[in-house]
């Protein structure tokens, strides 16, 4: 064998359950939790494989010599106890919705019923290979199709794909469908470089989410920004002047990212359709409109919604999500395939639309997220879903009104599920910035709102309390925000002081990036620790 054996044999006399490094001090914030790499001790093991009785082969019998590594790959040597202690401690250095209110605007951080987790862990769902024949996966096909139908009903659309893994992926998918549609009008089929030169612009409002322009850029369309008016809504006159036969479409969020409903949406839809453009609805967040109004009825052609916001998938620290993309029937032939469908005999199969733009996921999308969302819809029913939106909007308006004398309210109207405040006056008066407000909220044990977004509001605090917070919680949050507005510069400048770390130096992190533990230890000792 070519390889040097440098691994310490297992500590045979020490049970796998032993390990750990004693104190729980990291919880108290006085100490950092070491990395798993620092906890590594030669001889410790956690793995356990089933007995298979398969004959043993030497490494040389299994791998041709030129493919054998020259150096032994090093991961860690830790016991099960070490792993449990470490990751449990890490979890205790982490805020989540289950701990408390998480009013991050545009993110819909609501409490999600635990039964949806139970559904997503049913072995009949988790233990299915995605390449299984439809005869084997009737249950899954049914779930996918039922969720597709429910989303179409809620959004007022005709067909949907469940493949996009998240909102951004759905946006790009929708824009490519937009492109395929326009090319089919001019050339009869979708071919790169032909047919769509005439329509090369997509309009997006200046208040849009960052993924919108990023997706438009990737779709190959040119971006034209539509300004907002003094009410925070699309400036209709400006829009009129931008419309022409070079417009492929417009991407809108409604309620927009200021939490305001685009009152003139019907007229906007008519104007865009008039010039032959399509309307894309960024429905990442449907929390305000369930059973209240539907993008399809507003005149939209393409809608995506983030199941990881409105439909009960907790955010997992950043993902996974899933974002069904729904379209009107004229665009259905372009959807990614394969798609689930119901056969005449009531069973289910897969089909790929005639002019499909092609797959956008390795398999069928984030299926477990879809199952969870369908469970959530069933749990609520049509009445419950409408109550979700009513309560979300009521909570947001209550909180907004309670704070209107303390912070600037750039757009004063009833808001939908979220609203934007500004610290501009407080910043001028005593230097209290949106960042300071966020850090003071941390100090008081609350997760802060989204800050500095949307970009059109200075010192923005974008607040989305969601329907799952009680009036008591809203009152506490409101009081906290009022107290912060009264804080002295010394007080707010030093916040937070109660968290496990204080304000983090982001400039240093970006200037000399340390992105792995090896980079950290190399920098410290000047050598490569990646391999033995």
């Amino acid at each position, binding site marked *: 064998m070519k390889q040097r054996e440098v691994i310490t044999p297992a500590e045979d006399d020490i049970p796998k359950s032993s390990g750990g490094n004693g104190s729980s001090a990291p919880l108290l914030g006085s100490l*950092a939790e070491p990395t798993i790499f620092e906890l590594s001790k030669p001889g410790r093991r956690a793995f356990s494989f089933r007995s298979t009785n398969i004959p043993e082969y030497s490494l040389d019998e299994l791998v041709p010599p030129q493919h054998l*590594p020259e150096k032994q790959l090093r991961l860690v040597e830790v016991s099960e106890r070490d792993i449990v202690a470490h990751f449990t401690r890490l979890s205790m250095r*982490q805020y989540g919705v289950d701990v408390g209110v998480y009013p991050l605007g545009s993110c819909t951080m609501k409490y999600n019923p635990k039964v949806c987790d139970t559904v997503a862990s049913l072995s009949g769902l988790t233990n299915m290979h995605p390449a299984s024949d439809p005869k084997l996966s009737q249950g899954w096909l049914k779930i996918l199709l039922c969720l597709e139908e429910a989303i179409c009903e809620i959004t007022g659309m005709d067909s949907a794909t469940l493949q996009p893994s998240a909102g951004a992926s759905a946006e790009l998918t929708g824009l490519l469908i937009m492109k395929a549609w326009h090319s089919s009008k001019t050339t009869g089929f979708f071919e790169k470089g032909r047919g769509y030169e005439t329509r090369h612009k997509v309009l997006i409002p200046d208040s849009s989410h960052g993924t919108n322009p990023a997706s438009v850029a*990737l779709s190959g369309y040119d971006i034209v920004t539509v300004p907002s008016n003094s009410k925070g809504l699309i400036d209709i006159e400006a829009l009129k002047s931008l419309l022409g036969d070079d417009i492929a479409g417009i991407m809108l969020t409604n309620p927009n990212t200021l939490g305001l409903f685009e009152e003139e949406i019907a007229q906007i839809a008519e104007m865009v359709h008039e010039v032959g453009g399509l309307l894309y609805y960024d429905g990442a967040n449907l929390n305000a409109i369930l059973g*209240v109004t539907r993008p399809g009825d507003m005149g939209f052609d393409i809608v995506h919604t983030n199941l990881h916001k409105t439909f009960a998938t907790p955010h*997992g620290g*950043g993902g996974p999500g899933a974002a069904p993309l729904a379209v009107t029937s004229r665009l259905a032939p372009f959807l990614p395939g394969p798609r689930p469908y119901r056969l005449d005999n009531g069973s289910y199969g897969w089909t790929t639309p005639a002019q499909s733009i092609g797959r956008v996921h*390795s398999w069928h999308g984030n299926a477990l997220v879809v199952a969870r969302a369908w469970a959530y819809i069933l749990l609520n029913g049509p009445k419950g879903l409408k109550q979700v939106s009513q309560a979300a909007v009521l909570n947001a308006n209550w909180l907004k009104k309670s704070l209107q004398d303390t912070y600037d309210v750039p757009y004063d109207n009833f808001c939908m599920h979220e609203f934007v405040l500004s610290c501009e006056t407080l910043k001028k008066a005593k230097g209290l910035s949106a960042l300071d407000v966020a850090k003071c909220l941390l100090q008081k044990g609350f997760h802060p709102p989204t800050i500095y977004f949307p970009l059109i509001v200075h010192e923005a605090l974008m607040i989305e309390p969601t329907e799952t917070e009680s009036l008591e919680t809203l009152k506490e949050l409101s009081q906290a925000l009022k107290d912060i507005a009264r804080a002295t510069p010394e007080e707010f400048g030093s916040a937070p002081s109660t968290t496990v770390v204080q304000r*983090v130096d982001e400039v240093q992190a970006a200037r000399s990036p340390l992105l*792995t533990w090896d980079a950290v230890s190399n920098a410290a000792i000047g050598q490569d620790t990646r391999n033995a």
Partner: protein
Amino acid sequence: MLDFLGCESLDQLFDTVAEPLRFNGSLKLDKAYSEPDLLTKMTEISNENHTVDELVCFAGGGAYDHDIPAVTKALASRSEFVTAYTPYQPEVSQGILQALFEFQTFISRITGLDVANSSLYDGATALTEAVNMAASFTKRSVLFISDGINPAWREVLTTFTRGTSLTIVNFPLKDGITDWEASPPGYSESEQPPAGLVVGYPNYLGCLEELSVARKIATSLGAALIVAFDPIAMGILKTPGEWGGDIAVAEGQSLGIPLSFGGPYLGLIACKAQYMRYLPGRIVGQSKDVYGKKAYVTTLRAREQDIRREKASSNICTNQTLMAITAAIQLSWLGTVGFKELALRCAAAAKYTKQLLLNIHGVEPMVSSPTFREFALKVPLDPELLLERLIGEGFLGGIPLGKEGILIALTEKRTRGEIDAFAQAFEKALKR
């Protein structure tokens, strides 16, 4: 609350939604289920699936039936991880940030490359992002890709690069290994050189590509070498980094994530330091807080969509963090020794199975190149029919390859008893 707002009804809050746009009916959805009723219904539906608990799984193709230890499931379902958002506020997100930092370290080690991000959606989108990276890095718009890349991934790449005017040039396989000397139709040398070469390791047919050849060609063309690898294979094979790869991508499902009918899975991406500022998605770095205490934070943020908007290197926002944490836990559990042992077990099971099946009359290797844990067989029967007969015998026999082959995958979970029975059923199915 309504009084406080000076409202008479909840409806009044929705006054900005003009009457013609109001949805006045009731959504056509089932009426609300109670929790127990919901569980009964969902359990019934899930029981209509025939899972790998019922059928012994020899199917792979990018999704593998591994054992998942209790510790991975237990820790990855802690609600502090599950119910957090993207770590925008580092002071209260050190748990997820550190777990992701450790994940990045693990991915850097198993790829042999300098840096990794904190996850992408899946293998296919990781490939797409890697190609976009190579195109921006080299400012070129041609891609050389091996036919040995998972066909679904190639389809996703084609879909998502429709907007970026990328020209994709496909290179065929010769005996299971990419033939970079071939002259693919529709491309002539006089055209722009490629931004990158994409090759699988092992490739879709399970074969070990000669990456030194791909590296040489990439170097001579000034292109990036992008390696789509199987993370489990890294326990016994040279890493993409050791082969001189510039960017490596993978499907990380094998690292503790259940089959789940295809998702959520885990897109892995890692690269050499010089590509770092082209990496898509969230990246966690170690820094210090104002008191000098070690602290983690998302960094190199100037690449991302929320800051750069249309100039961002990628549109990704939500990623697969929880799956990345799962993988970090799983890799800790495997450790140095278990990671190698796992790879050895998969390779040994594959070798044993391949030998048994090749003893069956009429079954031949589709290609003769060496393989790792997955291999392609030529069978004397329509593969769909063969697989259907195998289902009847209790086996998920593999994935069809056209009209004459099937792709078979092994994991550490398959026992000799199961494999022997599979070979018998295989023989029987062919004879019938």
